[in-house]
């Protein structure tokens, strides 16, 4: 899925071909140790139309899900589990 996303971001002009290649090569070599859970804490303040609702058929569960495509680092906190 991330490979597809990297290709799409190039097509959309959001990242360069070099960046795509780096992402794809890192994905190819990634092991399970490279993945760890993060909890993103995003205060829902004034996102307006940037906050999109995920259609039910595309949700991972029955709960509400949202997408903010252009979330900036200053707009969230990351909690990591030891």
């Amino acid at each position, binding site marked *: *899925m991330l490979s597809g996303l990297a*290709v*799409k971001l190039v097509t959309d002009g959001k990242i360069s071909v070099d960046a795509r290649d*780096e992402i*794809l*090569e890192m994905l*190819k070599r990634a092991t399970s140790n490279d993945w760890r859970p993060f909890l993103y804490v995003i205060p829902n303040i004034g996102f307006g139309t940037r906050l999109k609702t995920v259609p039910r058929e595309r949700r*991972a569960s029955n709960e509400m899900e949202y997408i903010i495509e252009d979330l900036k680092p200053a707009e969230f906190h990351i909690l990591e589990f030891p």
Partner: protein
Amino acid sequence: MMMMLDSLKQYDSATANNILAAIALSSTTNPGVGEAAESIGAYEQERVAVLQELRSRLNVSPSDDPAEINRRVLALLSRQIHEISLEGKDADAVLARAGQAGRLTPSLYRVEFVPTFAICVGLGTKIAHVHDAILRSDEVQHLEGAQGEPGFSLFLKFHVNAISSDSFWLLVLAHRNGRTLIVQNAWRVYPSDVDLTDAKRPIDVLRAFANVFGLQVQVGIQAGKFILNEIIPLRVGQVIRAYTIKGLRNKAYVGTMSGHDLPEAHRVIVAYAIDLLAYEKSLHHHKVRTNAKYALSPQDEYSISVSRLSGSRVNYTFT
């Protein structure tokens, strides 16, 4: 060797890649990218043909677990996308470029140590803790070098102790050279000793640490205990004392004097020198056992002078 899927042979590489990407994005429950699922609409026929071919290649049986089938199909899709995207490219060069820029996943860096790192080990830093700080850092900051020049990276990892004043941040400084991290030094930064109130990034932690345990350094005309990003103009024939550590007599230091030459200047990336006697004494307060071996300086100053001979030729003199 890339093997294009039969179902995509009629397309050029870029189009085939876009089709595979659209299929990958539409094959997940939540693509997370807004309209991605809709983008498959233009390639619906191709999607059916590609998935059929992939399932055939994977020898999928109707009785197999659908989730497992999807996982294997996605893995094969990713492989196809990788092969098309990186066809004819040097994968090691791709990773070296990412590494140089500080974009590489930590586990893909090779970690090396400068010989003087033995002093940091003698001062209670374990090699395993350095690897841990790099692989599982609490915070990392990659500072850029000039074009084509190594930058450096700072890694922070908090070590909790039952006695709160003995809890510390392990701060690791490493130079980046392609895929290699060359660890220069690592310090235990105790918040009980170093005021980190205003430290927002790892570089601020290093600055605060140097301000407590550093010796006076002079870079060009700027003096202090921590110098960052200083440009020293350099004319042909001129000799400049680029770096000077002062008050060194009967002391020892470990630090970093990092810089590179520009066409008409010398750029200092970072300069600091940690007073090992003061640092070791603080470690003893925290009951850290040390056995570092270092010689005390007989001279009061140590300096590196830079002179530009002609064109881009630069000479360094150590005194």
